[in-house]
């Protein structure tokens, strides 16, 4: 079972982002999350890095240094197969959570 807390949600967003793109640096992930959620999800941008490093240590994502379009060196992250599986589980977990919350709201 995935953890249904805020950290779990951030993980889910990052994993989902990386699942849609081949590889992305931290700033790119932040931009993507902000754009895709219509600026609704505002996280402190720095807080994504501890999450990225933790996920890398857990083997869900891998990283490499590469040049950006503006020729700047940046660390790019990529989803691993373990990460893909994790994303799948996290999505399911989140659906469960949402269903649970919806059911609660309906009968409350």
């Amino acid at each position, binding site marked *: 079972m995935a953890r249904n807390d805020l950290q779990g949600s951030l993980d889910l967003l990052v994993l989902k982002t990386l699942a849609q793109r081949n590889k992305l640096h931290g700033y790119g992930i932040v931009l993507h999350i902000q754009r895709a959620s219509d600026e609704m999800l505002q996280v402190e941008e*720095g807080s994504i890095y501890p999450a990225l*490093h933790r996920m890398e*240590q857990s083997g869900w994502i891998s990283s490499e240094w590469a040049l950006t379009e*503006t020729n700047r060196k940046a*660390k790019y992250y990529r989803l691993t197969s373990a990460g893909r599986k994790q994303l799948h589980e996290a999505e399911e977990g989140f659906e469960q959570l949402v269903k649970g919350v919806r059911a609660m709201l309906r009968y409350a």
Partner: protein
Amino acid sequence: MALLRRIGNLFRRSRLDGEIDAELRAHIEMRIEDNIAAGMTPQEARRDALVRFGNPSTTKERAVAADASLALDNLWRDIRYALRQLRKSPIFAATTVLTLALGIGATTAIFSAMNAVLLRLLPAANPKQLFFLHLPDDQPYGAHSTGDSETSFSLPVFRVLRQDRRAFSEVMAFAPLGGSKVAVRFGDGLPEQAAADMVSGNFFSGLGVAAATGRMLSMADEDANAPAAVLSYAYWTSRFSGNQNVVGQTMSVKGIPFTIVGVAAEGFPGLEQEGPTDLWIPLQRRAELVPWGNSSDQTLYGSPDWWCLRLLARLAPGVSAQQAVAEANASFQAEAYARIAAPNAAHPRISLSAVAAKGMMGLGDFNEYGQRIRIMMALVTLVLVIACSNVAMLIVARNAARQREFSLRMALGAARHTLLRQLLAESGILVVLGAMAGWLFALAATRALATWAELEMSLGPDWKVLLFTGTVSVIAALVFALAPMRSATNAPVTFALRTWAVTGHRSKRGGSTVLTVQVALCFTLLTAAGLLLRTLLNYEHTNLGMQTRGLLVFGITPQKEITDATRLRFYQTLLQRMRALPGVEGATFVGARLGSGWSSNDEPTVDGLTYSFSQVPLRTNVVGPDYLRVLGIPLLEGRDIRESDTATSQHVVVLNETFVKRLLPNKNPIGHQLGELKDHYTIVGVAKNSKYRSVDEAPRAMAYYPYTQNDDSRSTLQVELRTNGNPMAMLPTVERAVHELDPDLPLEKPMTQIAVFEDSYSQQRLFSRLAMFFALLAALLVGIGLYGTLSYRIGRRTAEIGIRMALGAQRRQVLSMILRESFQIAGAGIAGGIPLALIAGHVMGSILYELKPDDKLSLAAALVGIVGVSLVASFNPVRRASRIDPATALRSE
């Protein structure tokens, strides 16, 4: 592995710091660029970027924590979890740790002995440059030698070699002052014994051994043959408690006064393989202090053709040992033949060789010892393989039994690598505990080994051994990590939750293969142990050609009698006193103690015709009257040496049957002449062959001279007493009688003659005991492995057996099914083990005594051993299987 990467991260902190900094900086800078592109001023863009980012240093700390501290946290959690799991199955944990400890410990102990004997370098500066000089073809013909003929050099040869610095930058000479310890005395104290060497002046400087206190010997000491002595650090600390005032005091060595000038650096035990040297003095001129201590007519400086010094050489820079020997050979040969007959066809020119100064090799006949140790190392490695495979099987079986647990945990969301990490932690803990226990075991074992082998040297483990044990343990840990990985990752989540009677059959074949290999190795070990045991028995039951029971032997060195005449008178009186003792049936002398490894050798001249040593090596000994009768050696023809054979009577000699067969065949040997014309001996008797140097020597031509007519090694004689009871019980009586003659005279090494011969194969005894211990250990491990596997399989097949029995199978059929399984493994193992055992026997050929490498009895004994182990290991599982009740078995599933 994520775990390893994390641990690695801990040590790469600074580099990681830099990487994280760069990553965060890139983020902020990209945001600033985008802000400027969106129309902000640089200052605004920067402030906005920082506000959006949050506190960079906190972010960095948290990212670092994610990288590193998480690792420790997880590691600690894994270890705690593993410990908890192991505590739940204490028998499994104890068996594993004990098996590993025995395997690793035994291997470490033998490796440390091998390290000390074969590999350890001298405790000197640049020890890899040091080589012992050798003479593979012995001394040049016509030279006299004392010590080991392969390593003895003359003083002039030594000086020539030392002078030529192109090949060897230093050549150092050394020789013991006596065959064993010599008498020393400090101040007015009592006489005591110490191991002393005489050495060249450049001995310590050439080795690079400094003084702990005082000074070391110098070239000036050698040139002056100075009365200066240097103590070893160990002797200084044990005898004088490290007292600084010892330096400058006088002492006496064999009655000659010396001044103690210094103490050698700690950890330098000298170069003698028999044991540590206590003190060193410079080369001496006087007749009392000569190398080996037992020559009456030769002195170091007065006898240029006396080969008695051992040489250690340091290679000149940039010269290989081969080049150096080639370079030094010409001047060596020129000096070697300077005063004696030039080499000819019968006695070819000898040349130098160099042997790396490693371990105890290079001195004496330690080559055979090295060979034995290598064989022991090979045998103990087999034990280690069996032990490790046993542990691997145990772990696999345990994990197979836990498959349901793994599947359950994986179904509950545990990642596969988490499981693996925990299994790895379990294996790691087992290996670490096993290796630590094994190390302690090895420490104790090496101490015991040194005592049994009667080596006064340290066999103790050093860093090289530690490295070895570490490597073995890491390999073991990796093997055990791989084993559970297979069974754990193969655990199918969906299937494993079903009834699990179906799983586990897959690993059956793997288990049987491991067991078969184990049986094959065990068979090899049993055969090797059998061969060595039979060798030992052959030593014990060798016909020595004499009656050793009841014989007491001790050495006597007359102190006050200096001249030949007084010495002879002393010996005659001593013999009369000994004969008169109650309980003594006969007494005689012998020059070289039988069975001690010492011998005198010569080239025979029969009726004026000389045979070279390589044609007919002649062994000689000087003996007292009634020698053959007292020792119980049968006389074949003529007469024994008699009391009437005195210094002035006709010179006579008694031969053995091998001599007669080789040099006087089909003749009556009595009356023929042995020796050069001017100094010949008339043959008066022929004795049956008997053992001389050692038990395992082949019969050689032998000549017994009366001690009265041959002054060879007359300074010390061995007294042989035939007693009619326990020889050692006679000792006080004998001692009293000797002291009545001379109160200062000690009995040297009094022993029974049986014990002397037994000591001559003490190494063989030690190694055959070791081999037996290894074989028993292997048999025990294989038995445990077989027992465990069979019990496990029967446990797994309870249902199957129940069904078979319910369908009408007889109990007998079930039993034979299980026994068949056990014997199939044993049979396959023996089939694989026979060629292995034959190879092992072949390799061991050189250390076997009167035994063929393919000795049928040893092979048969090994076979019986394996069958026995299989039967014992199957007994309990078979009994359990026979008690299976079909109804209960079927219900339990």
